[in-house]
């Protein structure tokens, strides 16, 4: 039983250290979600099949929030004629790259890991988009 209370106490300490980062991260996410309006997304894509996926990747990476929001944005972008390649890169980077959470990730899991994970996720979003759209086209 004393081992259990030791675990509770250890976890409480770990949570106490996490609170300022957690508050800061949620505050930042809230502000970013207010500052980037939906109309911004539809005005950026030019129709270029090479540049659009990269733009989708960048926008998805700096955006944050519930994936449902990205589905709604993604659906709207498709309706506005944005390519599926760009929308897929946008959807994937939205959920795999976390620039806003980067300070928290670096503090808890290490700077090198956090940078490497986000950077590789950024480039892999384009690979996922290419593979998905290619397979979608042939299946």
């Amino acid at each position, binding site marked *: 039983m004393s*081992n*259990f209370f030791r*675990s*509770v106490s*250890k*976890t409480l300490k*770990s*949570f106490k*250290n*996490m609170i*300022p*980062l*957690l*508050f*800061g*991260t*949620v*505050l*930042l*996410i*809230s*502000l970013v*979600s*207010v*500052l980037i309006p939906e109309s911004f997304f539809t005005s950026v894509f030019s129709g270029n099949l090479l540049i659009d996926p990269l733009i989708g990747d960048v926008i998805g990476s700096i955006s944050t929030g519930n*994936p*449902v929001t990205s*589905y*709604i944005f*993604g*659906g709207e972008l*498709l309706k506005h004629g944005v390519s*599926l390649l760009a929308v*897929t890169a946008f*959807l*994937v980077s939205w*959920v*795999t790259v*976390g620039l806003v*959470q980067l*300070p*928290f*990730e670096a*503090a*808890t*899991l290490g700077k*090198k*890991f956090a940078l*490497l*994970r986000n950077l*590789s*996720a950024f480039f*892999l979003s384009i*690979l*996922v988009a290419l*593979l*998905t759209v290619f*397979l*979608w086209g042939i*299946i």
Partner: protein
Amino acid sequence: MKGKKNLASWLFLLVVGGVYLLVGITMPLVFFQGLTVFVQVFSRIVPVLVFVFVLMILTDYFIKPKALAKKMQKSESKKWLFAVAGGILSTGAAYLWYPLLSELKEKGLSYGHIACFLYNRAVKIPLIPMAVFYFGWKYMLILTVVMVFVSFIQGVIIEKVMGE
């Protein structure tokens, strides 16, 4: 090291507070909208935080580094399966899981497994119907399979680069 980390955490909160102050002076409407979203998000994540808190206690209590390291040494494929399944089944924002993953790292998980776990968090089973509504079953099925496949690639890349 822990003291420095704590200081950095408070500094980060202070900087974000400063940004809010600046926004509050220049764009009061955005300031209040941001705060409203903050309250909404925070009230939504409280149950998840409680869940994570309980999980962290249980992890600390039941998972002993030596026993886990021993189990994980037995089967490399199980580690990856744990990372994929854990990532898909986990709930809440990714940053809520960082402390738990950091603890699991000390107990034997590699950075590759953690990256794989975090990548698979993108696959959200409860949200699939919503995604299907916008993009169709075929697209979502292909995207999900491709993402699980790519999560392994990312895990392996990170393991190599981190020198594990």
